[in-house]
């Protein structure tokens, strides 16, 4: 985390990490504050980056079948990584386990690195030189691959990649990914029109 360099105290940096726990939103907030943005403008940008977590929640609540009382606690861990791991699991048991293990380990690691980073213990050096920055996309790709079972999923993924990359230079951070999410309803709609003519509704949810 680079927040220590932008005027946030150690306490503020750690509070942000512990309570927001959505990496992209944290960076966006810190970046906007460092650039001199007002608190509400900065928060709005961070909020946009967090909106996609609601879409993960839609799917995860079916998949994990969480009891009502547990949901407020599970919600904090609904992020890209936990969604990707849970959705890649074959059974509900494995999905629940994946959600908890990923959520817990990331929560601990993320907040520890925030603390260490804020304390100035940046002795690790340039991790990019080791190619570690490629690990993130590779993990997502590996988790995404099993989900691309039918043509529908592949079309959605392809369209989302185009939208996400194409709009990245022109829209504010966080918005391109949300627009890319529209690939899902768009492909469903197109399929529905074609499928409706053939009466073909074979692909069902797992």
């Amino acid at each position, binding site marked *: 985390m680079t927040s220590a360099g932008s005027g946030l105290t150690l306490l503020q940096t750690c509070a942000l990490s512990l309570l927001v726990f959505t990496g992209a939103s944290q960076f966006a907030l810190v970046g906007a504050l460092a650039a001199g943005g007002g608190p509400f403008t900065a928060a709005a940008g961070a909020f946009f980056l967090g909106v996609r977590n609601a879409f993960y929640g839609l799917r995860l*609540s079916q998949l994990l079948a969480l009891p009502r009382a547990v949901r407020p606690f599970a919600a904090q861990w609904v992020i890209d990584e936990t969604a990707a791991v849970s959705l890649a699991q074959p059974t509900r048991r494995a999905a629940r386990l994946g959600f908890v293990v990923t959520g817990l380990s990331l929560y601990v690691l993320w907040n520890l690195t925030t603390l260490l980073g804020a304390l100035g213990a940046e002795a690790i050096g340039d991790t990019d030189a080791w190619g570690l920055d*490629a690990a*993130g996309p590779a993990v997502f790709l*590996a988790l*995404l691959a099993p*989900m691309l079972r039918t043509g529908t999923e592949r079309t959605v993924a392809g369209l989302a990649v185009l939208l996400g990359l194409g709009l*990245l230079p022109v829209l504010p951070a966080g918005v391109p990914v949300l627009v*890319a*999410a529209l690939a899902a309803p768009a492909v*469903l709609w197109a399929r529905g029109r074609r499928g409706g003519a053939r009466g073909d509704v074979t692909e069902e949810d797992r």
Partner: protein
Amino acid sequence: MSIWIAIGVTVIGCYAVKLAGLLVPAGVLERPLVRRLAALLPVALLAALTAQQAFSDGQSLVLDARAAGLAAAAVALMLRAPFLLVIGAAVVVTAGVRALGG
């Protein structure tokens, strides 16, 4: 103080959207169209994120060593390599290309 306000608003907003997704009533999610949509949305989001993490730097699109790393991961996946090997291939290839000046 304004930093605490920004943190507070972000905390509440980000938590609210996370919870909102989980609290959509099961009845709504039972409808076939909603089910299919909820299954496809993460596919779209993760695909877009993967591409952005591999091919961008801030708000500009770049083609650098990470692309080679991601391609290596894709090849490893097609060969049905185990998860850690896939990640390892991406990291090693990216570091290698970077060391060669890519």
